[in-house]
């Protein structure tokens, strides 16, 4: 009979004798390992997802928002009073060499009607560069032209969600829809883009010429924001600096005199960093839960192993009397602790993968079960078994056989 096989068998039998106790003991490890696996998985999934989404915003993407304004010493909130103007858009287009595409943008929400169907959605105004900036192609028909924009023509391009909800299987190109009771002709349909970083459906939108949305739907003079593309990834920072300088000059803002910018520029890189910061905070939280849980789990294992050693003092005595050496007894209890913690680890991995799948499912993230996280969790739990099982095993191996045999 092989020693290892028998030691394993004895370990499983001893743990099987108290199934509930073993399970409760392993619970700390289960939770800890599940946390580790889920943390790594969710972190990876979230990062991949936000990277994909940020890329889906467009390449070398820059966004200029209206910022705070100060009038008579009272500072108002972001966007409350847009100081961005159409001439700012033109100035950026003409003067900032690091920028290749520029589009003014504006957004409102309205009810869209087609036949007997209606749907409330976001209406975005954009200029001809808009699809280039957002790397968002037209799937059917075509995008509106610069002439459409200048003439404030009542034409629009639909997102996929809108097509599904208003038209069903019908081809929307060339059809008339009504937005705020104004008839618009559908000239094109955009490709499906999927959810955004905030979980919004990006395809649930209508794109119309900027001037049309501003004049006909909103009746305002303010520019909602400016979208731009830098010439290349290396040019993003330079474009940002140049736009800032230009807008400060145009808006007569003296940064040195402590005046606030009345605009804000966000780049794709910054948004990426922000997203990473968020997932890091989340990861830190989960890691600390995992750490505490694994520690508590380890202490639980030590506790139960100490109880087990006491309960089985007699058995230890018998084994010693018939020739088991200290090392044999130590190995037996150590293996038991490791079996307990590894069982917990395996269950934890299963639970963690489950949690990760659930989160990924609801957040529409890709499921990434990395072999790394699974093997890391496995090694972790085995280490805990060895670490916290060592003292009880040592205690068992040091029992005096005479005392142990007499133990009631």
């Amino acid at each position: 009979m092989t020693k290892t096989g028998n030691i394993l068998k004895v370990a499983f039998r001893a743990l099987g004798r108290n199934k509930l106790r073993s399970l409760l003991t392993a619970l700390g490890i289960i939770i800890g390992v599940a946390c580790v696996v889920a943390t790594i998985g969710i972190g990876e999934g979230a990062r991949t997802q936000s990277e994909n989404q940020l890329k889906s915003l467009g390449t070398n993407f820059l966004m200029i928002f209206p910022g705070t304004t100060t009038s008579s010493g009272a500072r108002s909130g972001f966007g409350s009073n847009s100081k961005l103007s159409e001439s700012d858009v033109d100035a950026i287009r003409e003067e900032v060499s690091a920028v290749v595409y520029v589009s003014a943008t504006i957004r409102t929400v309205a009810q869209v009607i087609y036949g007997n169907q209606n749907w409330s959605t976001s209406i975005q105004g954009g200029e001809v560069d808009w699809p280039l900036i957002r790397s968002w192609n037209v799937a059917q028909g075509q995008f509106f032209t610069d002439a459409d924009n200048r003439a404030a023509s009542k034409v629009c391009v639909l997102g996929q969600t809108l097509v599904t909800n208003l038209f069903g299987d019908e081809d929307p190109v060339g059809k008339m829809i009504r937005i705020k009771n104004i008839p618009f002709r559908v000239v094109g349909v955009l490709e499906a883009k999927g959810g955004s970083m905030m979980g919004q459906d990006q395809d649930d939108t209508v794109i119309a010429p900027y001037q049309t949305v501003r004049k006909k739907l909103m009746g305002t003079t303010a520019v909602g924001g400016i979208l731009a593309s830098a010439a290349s990834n290396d040019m993003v920072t330079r474009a940002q600096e140049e736009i800032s300088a230009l807008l400060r000059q145009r808006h007569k803002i003296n940064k040195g005199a402590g005046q606030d910018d009345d605009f804000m520029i966000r780049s794709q890189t910054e948004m990426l960093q922000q997203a990473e910061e968020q997932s890091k905070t989340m990861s830190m939280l989960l890691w600390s839960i995992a750490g505490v849980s694994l520690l508590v789990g380890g202490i639980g294992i030590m506790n139960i192993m100490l109880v087990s050693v006491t309960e089985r003092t007699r058995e230890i005595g018998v084994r010693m009397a018939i020739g088991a050496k200290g090392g044999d007894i130590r190995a037996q209890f150590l293996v038991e602790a490791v079996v307990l913690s590894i069982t917990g680890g395996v269950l934890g991995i299963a639970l963690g993968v489950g949690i990760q799948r659930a989160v990924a499912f609801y957040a529409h993230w890709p499921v990434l079960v990395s072999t790394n996280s699974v093997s890391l969790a496995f090694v972790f739990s085995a280490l805990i078994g060895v670490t916290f099982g060592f003292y009880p095993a040592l205690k068992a191996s040091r029992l005096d056989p005479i005392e142990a045999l007499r133990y009631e």
Partner: protein
Amino acid sequence: MSEAVIRIGDLTRVYTMGETEVRALDGISIDVGKGEFVAVMGPSGSGKSTFMNIVGCLDRPTSGHYFLDGVDVSGLDRDARAEIRNAKIGFVFQSFNLLSRTSALENVELPLLYLAKGGMSDREATERARKCLARVGLADRWDHTQAQLSGGQQQRVAIARSLVNDPAILLADEPTGNLDSKTSEEVMAIFQELNEEGRTVVLITHEPDIAEYARRIVSFRDGKIVSDVPVARRRHAARAVAAGGVK
């Protein structure tokens, strides 16, 4: 007397309890020859348990010599004594001490798990364990666990376990202490049979009638051997009972 399996010379075992010294064994000398059947008697505190622990290599003498099967074992450390116990001594305890939820066969195989040199194949181990179980009349109960066996059957499994390593001595500590008189007789019959086959048996007991199954009675008192006599009228356990097994 043939060659000595146990040769003990001027052996003492002193326990220190605080400032007082207790001489549990006080300079005893005794030889036990191969094939003998010795009963060790004495009231509690007489030193017979200490004697058993030392003979069984569970404990070490404070001074003196103990040769077991020709080897001086008085100075061995824990692990070396574990090896000696495994190879040379078959223990039978008062409370049987079988592992619970473990089949009779696995209980009997247990000592083979701790063989010092060169393990044994599973098949060989099972084969030997089965033979030992058959020897005590339990061949058909190999898969029974402790809970499924009567006291007498449990003790017979324990005897089979003590035999599996073919030890130099069988060391039985009050083997009938937990059994009724009929079952005691059956168990003693097995010891007598084993002895007749040439096994050396050392039996610790405080019951005079059980001691009379042996061939020689050694009595302890206050850590000394006070008498060492052959059994005048030896009792013979009813062979029929043992051979017929227990229902």
